[in-house]
């Protein structure tokens, strides 16, 4: 029983933590997405930064490229925004 109570409070705290950072996490993903688009925009016809900038930082951008890809293919961005503001 103690274990269940412990798990309940743990879950409660986790959920509270998640709710409190939900908006920042959304904002962070969008910033990372924007950052990746600025660097790799030439792939979709956007003007690109001077070549050496992209070449220098590209090797360190696994996370941003991953976020950009999932924003395009997997994520339901509108659903996320509606959820964020408790709409629907």
């Amino acid at each position, binding site marked *: 029983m103690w274990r269940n109570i412990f798990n309940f409070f743990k879950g409660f705290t986790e959920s509270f*933590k*998640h709710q*409190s*950072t939900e908006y*920042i*996490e959304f*904002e*962070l993903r969008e*910033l*990372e997405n*924007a*950052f990746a688009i*600025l*660097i790799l925009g030439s792939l979709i016809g956007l003007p690109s*930064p*001077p*070549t*050496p*900038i992209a*070449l*220098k*930082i*590209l*090797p*360190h*951008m*696994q*996370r941003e490229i*991953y976020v950009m890809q999932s924003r395009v293919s997997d994520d339901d961005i509108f659903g996320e925004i509606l959820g964020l503001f408790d709409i629907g």
Partner: protein
Amino acid sequence: MKVFVIGKGGVGKTTCSSAIAIGLSERYKTIIASLDPAHNLGDVLMTKLGNKPKKVVNNLYAIEADIDFFAMKYLKELEKSLKNVYRYLSVINLEKYFEILRYSPGIEEFSVLEAIKEVIRSNFSAFVFDTPPTGLTLRILTTPKTTLIWLKKLIELRRMILDRRSAIEKIQGKILFKIEDEKIEIPTRENDDAVIKELIKYKNEIEEIQKIFTDKDTYVIGVLNPDKLSFLEMKRAKDVLDKLDIELKMIIVNKVSGDVSLSEIKREFETNVRLVKLRDREIRGIQNLRELYDEIEGIR
């Protein structure tokens, strides 16, 4: 002291810059570098030049910078850092895949900047650069400024990202990013973030290059002929230089045969003007160039 001689193709940039270098070499250990992919500095100085400084006379050395060499050198550096990250590709001969980068837009400008940096690092007191025709030269001079605009914006955006990550970390603990089965800790501080460190390091490098052009001891000298075309091109070049905060410190009107209105040129360019008379023979060789310097003198 650094001197950049700019102007339309064929106005006599190489001749004037050679004369200036010879004059300066009487007071300073001087190097003249041709940055024009179509070199003719060796022809003017009447000696064979290459990609290494060669002594021409007493205190004067000259080099015809091989832009392809600097492009490859520059790309080798990039390749090294890419190799570290994409190490697994080395088994299938990585080098040939990155060779294509040589043809990326903008690489030529960065290669010329690399050549300028390399020359300035060498052990001389005065540096004279004979530049390519106006169009390419202006692109080269503009490159540091546009690169800095990008870098400043990207650094600002990166700081916002790190700021948000750090806020999340404070509440939820370390942020772990899962790629397939691997969990990677996401950096939340500038000291741990390779991206912002690269951006800041590169910004410092570019600011150093930018300083070369805007320093007080840098002379940008425009060469034009007494004709409308080279005059108009220099006017446009001056507009660009003004936007880049680069001062045009002297105008040399080369190959003057008749009357030229000095006051109009002075008024237009708001700078020192020197007139160089049209000779009845080609100006080549140390002696002839030294005589030409007497007409230009004023750079100290």
